[in-house]
C-alpha cells in the first residue's frame, strides 16, 4: 500500500533517533520494567475477564444463581456485588503496583536523559 507523500508524514526518522529507541527498549532496566508489567497485567486481565463472564454464563446455562444465598438474597445478587468489590479491589491494587512502575520509569528516564535530549 502506498501512502501519500508529504513533508510532515513519512519523514524518515532521524536514523540516530530511531535506533536510539531500539537500543533503549533493549536495555536491562527497560526490559525488566516491561516484564514486571506483563507479569502483573496479563494474569489480572484474564482473571477479571473470566470472573466477569462467569456470571452471564452461569445465568444462561445453569440455575445455580437462583438458589438462595442469605435469607431471600439469591446467589445472582451476591455474585453481582462481588463484581463491584472486584472492580474496587483491582483498581486499588493497580494504583499501588503502578507506583512502583512509575519509580522504575523515572529511573530509566533519568539514566538515559543524556541520549534522549541529544
Amino acid at each position, binding site marked *: *500500500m502506498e*501512502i*501519500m507523500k*508529504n*513533508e*510532515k*508524514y*513519512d*519523514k524518515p*526518522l532521524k536514523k540516530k533517533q*530511531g*535506533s536510539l*529507541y*531500539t537500543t*533503549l*527498549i533493549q536495555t536491562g532496566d*527497560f526490559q525488566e*520494567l*516491561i516484564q514486571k*508489567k506483563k507479569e502483573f*497485567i496479563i494474569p*489480572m*486481565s484474564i482473571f*477479571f*475477564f473470566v470472573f*466477569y*463472564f462467569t*456470571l*452471564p*454464563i452461569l*445465568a*444462561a*446455562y445453569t440455575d445455580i*444463581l*437462583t438458589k438462595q444465598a*442469605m*435469607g*431471600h*438474597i*439469591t446467589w*445472582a*445478587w451476591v455474585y*453481582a*456485588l462481588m*463484581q*463491584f468489590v*472486584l*472492580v*474496587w479491589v*483491582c*483498581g*486499588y491494587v*493497580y*494504583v499501588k503496583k*503502578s507506583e512502583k512502575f*512509575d519509580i522504575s*520509569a523515572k529511573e*530509566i*528516564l533519568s539514566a538515559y536523559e543524556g541520549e*534522549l535530549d541529544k
Partner: protein
Amino acid sequence: MSSLALVLFLAIIFLTLTITYLSAKKTKNASEFYTAGGGLTAWQNGLAVAGDFMSAASFLGITGAIALIGFDGFYMSIGNLVAFLFLLYLVSEPLRNLGKYTVADMITARFHSKKVRGVAALNTLVISIFYMIAQLVGAGGLIKLLLGIDFVPAVLIVGTLMTIYVIFGGMTATSWVQITKAVLLMAGSFVLTFIVFAKFNFNVMAMFEHIKAATPLKDAFLDPGNKYKNGLDMISFNLSLVLGAAGLPHLLVRFFTVKDATTARKSVVYSTWFIGAFFIMTIFLGFGAAAFVGFNNIVAANPGGNMAAPLLAQTLGGDILFAIVSAVAFATILAVVSGLVLTSASAVAHDIYGEIIRDGKITEKQQVRVARIASIMVALISIILALFSQKLNVAFLSVLALGIAASANLPVILCTIYWKRFNMTGAITGMLVGLLSSVILVLLSPNVWNPVPGAAIFTGDPIFHMDNPTIFTVPLGFIGAYLGTILSTKKADEEKFAEVLFKSNTGYGISTAKE
C-alpha cells in the same frame, strides 16, 4: 408542568451557562479547547468521567429495567462498571502517553499515515453521532414526559445548549458541566435511595423479601433470565458492555485533560468509586419503583420503564422531589451530549481538517475557529437526524455505538500498543472490518426488522437473529487487524514500535499544554 420544575430547569440552564461564561476566558487556544489545557486534577477528571459516562439511560433506563424485569436490568450496571477495569489496566495510560487531543492521535503516533487517521476519525464520528441521536431522541421524549414540552422544542433546547457550551467553553465548560451533573446525579440518587431504604427499615433482607411478592414476576424477579432467554445473545450483550466502554471516543478523550498517566490512572479509579456507588443505588431505585410505584403504573407512563425513577420520586416526596429528579435527569442529558459534540468536533477539526487536509500546518487561532465551526456542523447534523427519528425506536443506536467501539476501536487500540508486528494496513482493515460488520449485522437484526408493523424501523423478518452481534464483531475486528497485517507486503516499522513502547511505558515526550 409545575412552576417548581420550571424554576429548577431554568436554574440548571443558568448554572451551566455561568460555567460556560467562566470557561470562555480559558478557551483561547487549541489545547484549551480540546483538553482544557490538560490541567484537571484526578478528582475532577474522575467526577467528569462519571458525568460523561452515566447517561440518562443509566439513571432512568437501568432503574426502569430493574423495576420491570428484575435482575436482568442490573447487567448493564455490572458490565458498565467492569469495563473500567479494562480501561484502567490496558488503555488509559498508553493512551495518555501517546495521544494529544484525539483517539486518532494515539493510533497515528505509531503509523504516520493519513489513511489511518482518516479511518480512526470516521469511527469516532460514527460512534459519537449514533450515540448523540439516541441521546437526543431520548431527551426529547423524556422532557415531554417530565415537563410537557413538545418533542421538537425539547430537542432544540438541548441541542442549542450543548452547542453553546462547546463553542464558547470547549473542554473546560464540558468538563465542569459533567462534574456538576455527576454531583447532582449522585446527590439526587442518594436522597431517593435513603428514603427507599428507610421504608424497608434499613433492612436489606426485608427489601428482598418484600420485592418477591410485590411484582407480577413474583419470585422470578430476583433471578436472571426474565428478559434474555437466549444465552448467546445475553453473553454478547455483556461483551459489548464490558469492551465497548474502553473504546468509546468521548470517554477516551477525557484522559487527555489530565497532565500525565499517573493522574489518568487515578482518575479512572476515582470514577469507579462514583460510578460503582451510583450503580449500587440503582438497585434501591429499581426495587423502590417496583414496590412503591408498581409495575402497571410504570408501564402506563412509559412502556420502556424510563419514568420509574421520576415516578418513584413523586410517590416518595411529591411534586417537589419529582421536580428535583426531573431537573437532575435534564442535567444528565446535557452533560453527556456536550461531551459527544466536543469529541465529534475534534475528529472533524483536528484530525480531518487540521492534520489530513492542512498537514498540521495550521495556527492556534485557525484551529480554534475550525473547531467551533465543526461543533456547530456536528450539532446541526445530529439535531436534524434526531428530529427525523422522532417516531423511530432508536434505542438500539446506543447498543450499536457500544458495539462499534468494542469491535472497531478496541482491537486496533490494543494492537497499536501491544503488538510488535502490527502495521498500517492491519490498522485500517481492523477498523473497517469492525465498523462494517457491526453496522451490517445490526441492520439485518431484529433491532431494525420486525414482522409486527411499527415495532421496529422496517416490517419484515430479520436475516440475522441476534439483537447484539458483538460476540461476532469483536473477533472479526481482531481478525481484520491480524489478516491485514500478515497479508500486506509492508513490513512493520520496528523502530516506530520501539518508540511507541518506550513512550507508552515511560511517558517520555508526553503532549502537555506547556508545549
